[in-house]
């Protein structure tokens, strides 16, 4: 509601910014400074999970913002899952002005409900600092505006330990094709180890494998269309994806229904599993275990299956900062969100202990260690970025329908056609949005 009131003034500003942008490709700082002059008042900030590290990063950035603008930031940390699950309720109450959030369906659907404030102006203020892909990823297809300022992302890739691959007589840097990969898994299995670690207890973990298989077999567009009902689960193309998925199942640990991502992490850490398809957020735990473990960890893009698509797609969930439409200080929230996405904000976050990869071009990666550089390589190899099935598809489909379908598939790969038919039937029964 409060969105509507501001639409006009913001459009005018946006136009101004667009015109200014023509000549001011490098001069974004001018706009930045005149923007922040106007905004005053305390801003409330929510850190979404992250424990002490999350608090330290938020404090570092928010303090830098206060030092710059004189606006006080009142911060709190919430449990990530609780925040996510109660998001709609929280946003309808009196939410904090700005908070860390996730791009994709979770932002766009809530923006359509009027719960998030439009930050398109702030994004144009940041100008060329944000990559086109990131801005595209943050854009709500419904109205072409942005409701999240993209900041960081992380790759989902194939993780393994270099030393283990070497022991098998393979080159750890060259696991490129499906055949290489099957060879790696076969040799790992022969040694009595888990070749492809899978945790499916939570229902979401297997989506990572499904996403990448579908993108490798059928390409990015088919995958996104499938998750949004424009393609069918019963299509022969989808069935083809599940053929590859079924090939993976014999290589998995048999107790996949008992463990989640952390179980998989421990398997790899204890050298009991060969490969692990996961977001690389868990690398910090390797570092916490020992530097040697961390140095041994490697990530490569999931191997090519269909040469038509190569390795052009990756699951790289995009995170960022959103602003609540119902906050007490919406303009303040937007200003703070912009600061988080700016060069100064990123520097403050890194000073606070952040190891994320930023989408901003102002982000200096020269000091990166080998693993982080490899993460960048993996991200850079992809043209199309998926956000993960539960961000690319609607909420009443991903969790309640797709999750159990994948679990059932893993338990009984032979029932695949029945499972896919049922998944399609359940999609068809969903109300129009």
């Amino acid at each position: 509601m409060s969105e509507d009131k501001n639409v006009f003034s913001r459009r005018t500003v946006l136009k101004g910014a667009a015109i200014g942008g023509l000549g001011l490709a490098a001069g974004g700082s001018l706009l930045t400074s005149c923007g922040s002059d106007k905004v005053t008042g305390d801003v409330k900030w929510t850190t979404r999970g992250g424990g002490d590290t999350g608090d330290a990063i938020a404090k570092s950035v928010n303090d830098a913002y206060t030092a710059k603008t004189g606006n006080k930031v009142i911060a709190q940390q919430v449990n990530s899952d609780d925040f996510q699950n109660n998001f709609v309720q929280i946003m309808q109450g009196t939410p904090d002005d700005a908070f860390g959030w996730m791009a994709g369906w979770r932002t766009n659907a809530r923006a359509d409900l009027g719960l998030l404030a439009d930050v398109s102006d702030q994004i144009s203020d940041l100008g060329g600092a944000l990559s086109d892909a990131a801005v595209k990823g943050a854009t709500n297809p419904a109205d072409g505006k942005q409701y999240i300022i993209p900041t960081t992302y992380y790759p989902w890739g194939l993780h393994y330990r270099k030393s283990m691959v070497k022991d098998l007589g393979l080159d750890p840097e060259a696991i490129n094709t499906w055949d290489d990969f099957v060879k790696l898994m076969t040799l790992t299995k022969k040694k009595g180890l888990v070749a492809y670690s899978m945790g499916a207890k939570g229902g979401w973990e297997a989506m990572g494998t499904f996403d990448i298989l579908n993108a490798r077999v059928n390409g990015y567009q088919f995958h996104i269309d499938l998750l949004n009902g424009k393609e069918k689960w019963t299509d022969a193309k989808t069935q083809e994806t599940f053929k590859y998925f079924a090939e993976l199942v014999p290589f998995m640990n048999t107790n996949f229904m008992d463990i989640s991502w952390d179980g998989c992490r421990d398997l790899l850490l204890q050298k009991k599993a060969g490969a692990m398809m996961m977001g690389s957020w868990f690398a910090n735990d390797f570092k916490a275990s020992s530097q040697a473990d961390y140095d041994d960890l490697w990530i490569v893009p999931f191997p090519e299956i269909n040469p038509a698509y190569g390795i052009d797609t990756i699951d790289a969930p995009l995170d960022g900062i959103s602003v609540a439409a119902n906050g007490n200080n919406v303009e303040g929230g937007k200003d703070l969100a912009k600061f988080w996405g700016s060069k100064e904000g990123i520097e403050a976050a890194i000073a606070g202990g952040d190891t994320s990869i930023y989408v901003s071009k102002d982000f200096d990666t020269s000091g990166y260690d080998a693993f982080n550089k490899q993460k960048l390589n993996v991200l850079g190899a992809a043209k199309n970025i998926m956000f993960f099935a539960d961000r690319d598809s609607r909420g009443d489909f991903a969790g309640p329908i797709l999750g159990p379908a994948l679990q059932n598939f893993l338990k009984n790969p032979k029932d695949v056609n029945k499972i896919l038919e049922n998944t399609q039937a359940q999609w068809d029964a969903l109300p129009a949005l």
Partner: protein
Amino acid sequence: MKTAATEVKNRSRRSLSKADRFTLSAFVGIPTFLQIILLWVPAVVTIILSFTYWNGVRLSDIKWAGLSNYRNIFFDNPIFYEALKNNALWLLWFIVIATPLGILLAYQIDRQIKGHKIYESIYYLPVVLSLAVIGIIWNFMLQPGGFVQGLMGRDIGNAISIWGNDSINTYVILGVASWRHIGYIMLLYLSGLKSVDPALREAAAMDGATEWQIFRKIILPTMQPVNIIIIVITLIESLRAFDLVYIIYGSPTIFPLLNLLVFQNFAGQGISMKGAAYAVILLLLCIVPIITYLRVVFKEDLK
């Protein structure tokens, strides 16, 4: 209960003081008001919403769906039947195994066997814990990397699949749930047994009745009101099962139960009124035992 009885008197005798009348109407009125606001209104709203499509945010988005949610649940949702099966198994297990065991224990302890106090405390202990805590304890013991797996020398890689193994997890979960239920039933029955006149039992024993005959012909019939309450409690406990399983799995899909499906579809990110439809189905399944329960309780009071 007391208030209901006094209200009858209130109507016949008009000599109550103003203060009395105020107190009485407050005693009846406040709980009734709260019940209506907090229970009946949401229940009716849920029933109405189960016939709509809605994502829970803007009232203007509510769309009439007719029977679609129900059709979806009954015809397209295999997980619904799995949940129904699990709830039914839960009920059957409680009625056939857990509840009779609790009654048997209560009967033995009531006979003051040696060390009965110790047995009583041991059996009763799990009842003090909530099912959520019980879930945490048993998950810690049985999960891969857990205590019991460790004792067997198994780590995460070769841990025995328990929670995720469809052929045994039902029985493990029911065993854990019974761990608490047996003690609960035992305590209820024990308090009932205390009020049975010992003379009845002695008289039967003198007439040469066996223990089994005494239990069946004397104790069970005299305990009729308690029996009904216990049966109804067993029914409700089985249908409302939620916390234990939710704590162990964190998601409702490996061991689905009706309540988990209500929660998954009604809360969280995937808000849809399918959750409301699940809730209505569950309500209908619960309402029969609840009505029976209330009727027994009120009959008791009228006596």
